[in-house]
């Protein structure tokens, strides 16, 4: 309840700021961005995050689960290890490295975002399966469930909340990182922030930053609801 209140207050502040700045007549020697600009860049932002995140889920979840399988277990350490190391590199650095390799443009921005979003998804998918109490798997096996039955009926349902948590974390981080994607030719709310930085108009920076923050809060809340919906009843606390 209290958390929800904090979220609503935060959201009102971010949206309020955006509206206030947009309604101003002028910012120093420049007009503020219009609602149309914000909407267009907001949509671009969502598109980039959406595509990158879907790619991250498409690769991260199966890969994370695959390296828990008996035959591929020895791949787990290098793959998950690499993912963990990747996560420690600052997002700006990841994006900066991508620019010379992939060139400038919307696509390379998406690939940079994908690489950075992959890590939490991959790590949680692996941990979700790997951290299941071995006694549960042993008793499933001991009762005569086949490998496929154990995977579908036991492992996946139990890992689902953890995997979902990974996707949620990854998405929220991705919304933030996407503001940097303009540096390699991406679109999105980062463009407004960047313009503000170049022209040294703080209010313009806020006009890009506030809707970005609002987007992160909204997506986080939506995904939290989805996560809870995906969590089997017996695993819910309280």
């Amino acid at each position, binding site marked *: 309840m209290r958390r929800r209140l904090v979220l609503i207050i935060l959201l009102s502040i971010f949206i309020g700021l955006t509206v206030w700045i947009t309604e101003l007549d002028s910012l120093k020697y420049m007009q503020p961005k219009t609602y149309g600009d914000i909407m267009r860049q907001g949509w671009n932002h969502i598109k980039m995050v959406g595509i990158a995140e879907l790619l991250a889920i498409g690769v991260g979840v199966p890969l994370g689960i695959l390296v828990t399988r008996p035959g591929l277990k020895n791949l787990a350490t290098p793959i998950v290890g690499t993912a963990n190391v990747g996560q420690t590199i600052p997002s700006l650095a990841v994006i900066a490295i991508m620019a010379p390799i992939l060139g400038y443009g919307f696509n390379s921005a998406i690939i940079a975002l994908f690489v950075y979003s992959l890590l939490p998804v991959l790590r949680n998918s692996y941990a979700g399966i790997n951290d299941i109490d071995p006694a549960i798997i042993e008793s499933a096996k001991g009762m005569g469930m086949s490998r496929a039955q154990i995977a579908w009926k036991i492992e996946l349902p139990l890992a689902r909340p953890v995997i979902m948590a990974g996707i949620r974390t990854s998405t929220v981080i991705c919304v933030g990182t996407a503001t940097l994607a303009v540096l390699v030719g991406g679109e999105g709310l980062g463009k407004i922030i960047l313009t503000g930085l170049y022209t040294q108009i703080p209010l313009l920076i806020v006009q890009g930053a506030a809707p970005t923050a609002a987007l992160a809060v909204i997506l986080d809340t939506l995904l939290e609801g989805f996560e809870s919906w995906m969590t089997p009843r*017996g695993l819910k606390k309280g």
Partner: protein
Amino acid sequence: MIKLQDVKKIYPDGTKAVKGVTFEVKEGELCVLLGPSGCGKTTTMKMINRLIPITEGDIYIDGTNNKEMDENELRREMGYAIQEIGLFPHMTVEENISTVPKLKKWSAEESEERSRKLLDLMGMDPDEFIDKYPTELSGGQRQRVGVARSLGADPPIMLMDEPFGAIDPITRDRLQDEFLKIQEEIKKTIVFVTHDINEAIKMGDKVALLKDGELIQYAPPAELLAAPKNRFVRDFVGSDRTLKSLRLMRVEEAMKQSPRVVREDDDLEDVKRTMETNEINYLIVVETGNRLKGWINKEDAEGVDSGRVADAMVADTGSAQIGTSLAEALTVMLEKDVANLPVVDEANKLQGLLTFHDLQKLIGETYTERGGRHPEV
């Protein structure tokens, strides 16, 4: 029936976990695999349902070599319960218990009926518990559901790996008693792993004592206590094995039938005379229907000049009920500081008399020929 024939488990690194074990578990028998940790008892059990592959030797289930059976089919014919229970947290109690029935494609109604019956058997109210999740249960209840789940599809064989290991001693004791009662009814062929000698003695029809992957002694508990094969067995069963063997014997095995009794309103003088002539200094007092009232001894009687038996009677003598173990009876004797203990049935009707002297004699015999509650020994 389960038959192990020179079964060996050698791991790729050369570790010999089980070094050629041969024994047989008869139908309806509870066989305890006992031994210190690392003795190979769990490994031996897991080779029966092939959770661990057998390196050498054969295991026959009702005459069929278990290597020739599909491993999942094989496991569905054997209940499996482990110490950590391993209930599926995302499934209700009913879904957990119905795991194997569902694998065997039972109908939903059949599965539910079976779950209800099993919960009932485990002393849990089906209406209350059937839709609960494991997190909503106490440790003891989870343990019960774990056992119920292993009985899910009514398998003829059960494998149990310290199924009562992870709970407090009082609950464990109760669960053991309950399970023994259930076993009397369902008569499964059970392989039961434990490291606890007391549990082994209490639960087992037979005990297989293992050490370093070898079967040291395979015998009924009473024989294990009375005739340990070597020093290791003697040390393992403990120096109090005499007391342990008392736990295996019931009062009715040691009591004297129809002891001499008097009634409350008998004349005290007559009773004193009887004691004098028969040279006895202790008599049990009963009321109508042979129900125990108390006892009267010679010294007390002499202090009272005349009257009825009731005037010299001691009311609280303690007693032992038919079916209790000699160990419990001995405890009562020591607590009440008496050398004679009346034995009664549920209705407090006198059945016999247990004397300290008889107990001593019996303990002596234990070492020579007695086999306790296992007459075939």
